[in-house]
Structure formats: structure tokens, C-alpha cells
């Protein structure tokens, strides 16, 4: 029990630590990977709290997602390596306000919610996975499938928008007009 609490605390602090690094570096890649390791630490917290599936899933998904974020940062940011010593922060007042209020809300939710009695016995990982599967394909199926289809649609739409128009007729027109 104490060991568990200890690890949750360690990973929690690591998550916060990496989260701070995100804003303390001016290298975009470092920033993205620090965010990745912050999220990985959150995944490890899940593991320490015996929710194995969630933890492993979190650790797996973040690796790819944050790497993709890193490449977008490199592609579009002005100084992705942070060599110019440029100040990466902007809209300071607004972000401080947003951060503080989010923290207050999160703490309030944590303190004020009725979490119910603590479970004595956590089901083992295999049983949890099974229960999660039953949930996903049972009661919550509609929600998840809708979300999935929506994301897929958004992806296809975004790709379609990004593909340059390849219409030979209109291309000829523009060439002729030039």
C-alpha cells in the first residue's frame, strides 16, 4: 500500500517535472518530448494504481502522438532548436489566468466529489481488460463508435482539403490566362 502510494507520488512528481520542462526550454523538439515523458509518467501512475490497460495504452499512444507533434513543431515553428534564445512565451496574462483557474477547478473536483468507498480488492489486469471490453462494446458502444467515426471523418476531410486540386481543365485555364 505504502509502496504503491510512493510510486504514484514519484511518477506524479515526474509528470509535473517534465511538464515544467515543456515550458522551460526553447527547443521545440525538447518541449514536445518533455510533454511525451510527462504523459508517460502519467501512464506509469496508472500502472502504479493497478489500472494496467489504461496505463499501457497511455504510454503507447503518447509516443506516437507527441512525436508527430514534434515534427509539426519543427516544420512550422520559427526556431525549433531554440538556438536563438528566443522567448517562446506569449499571451502571458491569459495563460496564467487559464492555468490557475483550471488548477482550481481540478482541485475542487478532486476535493468535492463523492468518490465513494475505496475498493478493497482490485480485479486483476486480465479481468479489468475484459470488463473494459464489455463496457466499450456494451453500454458505451454508441459513444465510442460515434467518436471514432467522427475522428475518421475529420481525418479524411482534412486530407481531402490538404490535397491540392488536380483538375487538368482548370489548370489549363489558368495557364491560358497567364
Amino acid at each position, binding site marked *: 500500500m505504502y509502496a504503491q502510494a510512493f510510486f504514484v507520488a514519484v511518477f506524479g512528481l515526474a509528470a509535473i517535472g517534465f511538464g515544467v520542462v515543456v515550458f522551460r526550454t526553447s527547443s521545440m*523538439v525538447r518541449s514536445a518530448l518533455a510533454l511525451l515523458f510527462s504523459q508517460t509518467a502519467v501512464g506509469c501512475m496508472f500502472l502504479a494504481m493497478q489500472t494496467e*490497460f489504461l496505463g*499501457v495504452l497511455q*504510454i*503507447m499512444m503518447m509516443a506516437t502522438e507527441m*512525436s508527430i507533434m514534434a515534427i509539426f513543431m519543427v516544420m512550422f515553428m520559427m526556431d525549433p532548436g531554440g538556438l536563438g534564445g528566443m522567448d517562446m512565451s506569449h499571451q502571458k496574462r491569459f495563460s496564467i489566468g487559464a492555468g490557475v483557474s483550471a488548477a482550481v477547478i481540478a482541485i475542487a473536483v478532486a476535493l468535492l466529489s463523492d468518490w465513494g468507498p475505496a475498493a478493497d480488492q482490485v480485479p486483476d489486469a486480465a479481468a479489468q481488460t475484459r470488463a473494459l471490453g464489455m463496457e466499450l462494446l456494451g453500454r458505451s458502444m454508441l459513444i465510442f463508435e460515434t467518436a471514432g467515426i467522427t475522428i475518421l471523418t475529420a481525418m479524411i476531410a482534412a486530407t481531402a482539403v490538404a490535397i491540392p486540386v488536380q483538375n487538368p481543365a482548370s489548370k489549363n485555364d489558368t495557364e491560358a490566362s497567364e
Partner: protein
Amino acid sequence: MTVAVVLMALFGSAWLLAVIEGWTTTGRLSLAAPVLSGLAHLGRESIVPRSPDRVFFEAAPVLLLVVAVLGAAVLPLAPDLIIADLGTGALFINAALAYVLVALIMAGWGPDGAYAMIGGWRFLGQLIAYSMLIVMPITAVAMRAESLVNTAIVGSQAGLWNIVYQPLGFVLFFIAAMALAFRAPFDLPIAAGELAGGVDAEYTGVRLAVLRLARLTLVVTLASATTVFFLGGWHGPLLPPWAWSLIKTLAVAMSMLLAGRYLPRIREADLMRWCWTLGIPLALVNIIIVGLLVLVVP
């Protein structure tokens, strides 16, 4: 104890692979060659490039090695010879291997050189091609076993190995595993002829030794995963279970190493196109077939 045995098997296999690799490239079979080459790397200067991202540069080879070892930790050599038989083992190996990408991006970005950087980002493109082909065949494997526990997955193949039950999945997984281990012909991030070593290009001395060891270990881990998921793991007549696991793993690893010698490097665009237009539909077909088999065949 188990940890020591599994690690010994892992690095022992990596050493054997290095011997075979040396044999194919130099034509001399020498059991001491990998050890000598490791020593020689220790003797060489380990240069840090001029303006590196030091953290990434140092961490990348180590991360790659750690990831390979973590992946191997959830794969059983024998029914009771496994470091951690996780309830989500088949998912965990995906999670661990996703960090191969992170390690390569770090190795590419760290040294601050154009060749390495292009190599690192190229692997991100490669991941977009192969990752679905790792996950979807494993899904079909887990469907048959009705479990994500790796020992249960091997157990489900006692009667019939998955390579026979779902050959399509095996082929896709094998190819994707080679791409994940960035072995030729999928060695886009290394690509001697295109990027002069790519992510490897700036590493020397001890760091290079770690990187090479990590790459070999990664091949062993992936071969071991192929064995567990498709080749019936420890099942086999006469020999003890661990021996079967090792034999199969080494055979898969060696075929991964050798295939690249006889093939030119794939074009990045082709890899992407084939994986998405051919590989993923095939993987879906595989899932459907396995689903039908699971439901229909008692």
C-alpha cells in the same frame, strides 16, 4: 533468477546474430568477432558533435536498448520463464516498441547534423506505414487466444500454430517487424547510400557500441515476439520448451538479417503506399477471417 536467464538468452542471441552478421559481411566466421568489435569501440574516441542537444544525443542509444529489453521482458521463453507475465502483455510490447521511434527521433535530432535529422524524421514516416501492421495482426492473435496475456497466447497455439491459423497475419507482422527494427530493406533512417549512416552517422566509440547492441537486441526482441505470436512459442516435440523458443527466435532473427542482403532499399513512398493500400486492407481481412474462424470453429 528468471531475469538473469532471460537477459542472458536475449544478449546471447544478439551475440550470435552479430557473429552471423559478421560472417555474411566479411566472409569469416569468428565467435570472438562481436566481442573484439565491442572492445575496439571502447578503444575509440567517443566524439560529441559540435552543438548537440546533449540530452537527446546521450539518451537515445540507451533508450533504444532499454526499450528492446523491456519488450523482451513480457515475452515468455517457457511457461514459467518470463520476467513479467502482464495481463496486457500483447499491448505492452506495442507500447514499448513505440519508443523505438522516440529513440530514433532523439538520435536524429541530438547530433545537429542534416543526415541524422532526416534519418530520424524519416523513421516517423516509416512508423506511420508499419505501425498498423504491427497492431492489427496482434489484434487477430489476441482474438484467437481471447487474451492479451502472452503465455495464454502461446497456450492457444498448442494445437495449431498461428502461422498456419492466420498466415496472412504472420506475413504482415513479419514485414512490419522488419520495418520496425529498421533492418534492410527498410533501413531508411540509416541508409548508408542515401544518408551516410543517418541516425548512426554521428555516433562513435562507446555510444556507437551501445547503439549497435541495441539494434541487434531489438531484432531479437521482435523475432521473439514473432515466435510468441505466430510460431507457437515454446511448443515443439522432444526438446525442452526454452530450447524451442530460442531456436525459433534465432531462425526468425536470422531470416530478418539475411533478407536485407538480397533486396534493394525500399522507396519511402512505396512503403507508405503499399502499407496503406495493400497492407491494412489485408490486415482487416485477416481480422475478419480469424473472427469467423473463432466464432465458427469450436
